[in-house]
């Protein structure tokens, strides 16, 4: 066993890690169905939330796959799908200029304003 490392946390346990290649990006031989991100509205009135991803050849198939994969337990009343490459995302390197400036705008929050306890309905 020496030299063989195993992780038990491969979910169902005991898979070797030593000597196993990690796969390099872009080395698959087949052209694949594109990746889609899936958003589900749990019930009326709630936001759509990101629940995961899937592969589909086109938008229509992606919607069907989202229904089959992510709403098997009555999870949703509405589904959005969008091709992963169409999601524009902020970069973590921009964290400070993007998000820090809103950190001190405490006056945007209701708790900033002190109102005497005996004023009703506030």
């Amino acid at each position: 066993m020496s030299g063989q490392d195993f992780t038990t946390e491969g979910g169902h346990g005991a898979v070797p890690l030593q000597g196993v290649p990690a796969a390099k990006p872009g080395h698959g031989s087949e052209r694949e169905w594109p990746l889609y991100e899936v958003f589900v509205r749990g019930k009326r009135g709630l936001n759509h939330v990101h629940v995961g991803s899937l592969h589909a050849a086109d938008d229509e198939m992606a919607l069907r796959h989202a229904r089959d994969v992510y709403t098997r337990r009555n999870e949703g009343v509405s589904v959005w799908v969008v091709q992963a490459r169409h999601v524009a995302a902020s970069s973590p390197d921009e964290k400070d200029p993007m998000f820090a400036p809103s950190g001190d705008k405490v006056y945007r929050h209701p708790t900033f304003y002190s109102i005497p306890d005996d004023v009703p309905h506030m």
Partner: protein
Amino acid sequence: MTTSDTATDAQLSALEARFEDTIARSERIEPRDWMPEGYRKTLVRQIAQHAHSEIIGMQPEGNWITRAPSLRRKAILLAKVQDEAGHGLYLYSAAETLGVSRGELTEMLIEGRQKYSSIFNYPTLSYADVGTIGWLVDGAAICNQVPLCRTSYGPYGRAMIRVCKEESFHQRQGYELLMTMMQGTEEQRAMVQESVNRFWWPALMMFGPPDEDSPNTAQSMAWGIKRNTNDDLRQRFVDMSVPQAEALGVTFPDPDLKWNAERGHHDFGEPDWDEFMQVVKGNGPCNAQRIAHRRTAHEDGAWVREAALAFADRQREAARA
């Protein structure tokens, strides 16, 4: 991550410091964050092999779908094996956030370059095995998977939360099947005991070799990818299973299994690590069969996947015209 290509040493150490700091604060690493190459590789391997385990894990139980002895059990089993396809899909998606593709990982699996959990290289020989896999194999998986919900890599942790939420029925359906069979005929009780005898040792091996034989555990634990040692998890599993076996009315095939009041845990015998290594090396009872099954499905489906892409291309062209 591309920043690392041109980064100066000073920039690199700043990035590393930020990464270490994020881990230290038990916050999650997200896909677009900088991460050390070793961390990324370890994650890809672990998540991929976790996904492969789910997908290959469909086969041992799937073996009994067409022979399920009641319509209720058939529905339960089909839904369970279907969940495993879903869990594999969630996990491949998590790996894809690290820049690898599902197709590429599938090729690594069917070429035997990446592995999956050895437990699925054991055959299922009676319907009781469906119950035993739910109870012991999924029980062992619980010990592994629940801590993973807190793993340091965000997409992996989120996938695991969904997996665990859905898995909550898997172990229970297995135990309930065995409980029902134990209330059935003498033959059914014997079938349950025989199945438990066969799966007990492979289930213990699911936690991997003893800690002293797992040299890289420390790095994975420091990175927060791995959260408990093999031996800890194995002990937890044994302690959890013994009273469940008593309630069921079955025994485990281990003469050394007994409560140790001093340790506050059960003592138990040593699994056959030679057998374990043989199975890992590909000589298990079902290794070749499992990979061949997966390869056939993948290759037989190629023309369908290709047709859907061709159709989508055609639709797009028509829309442009």
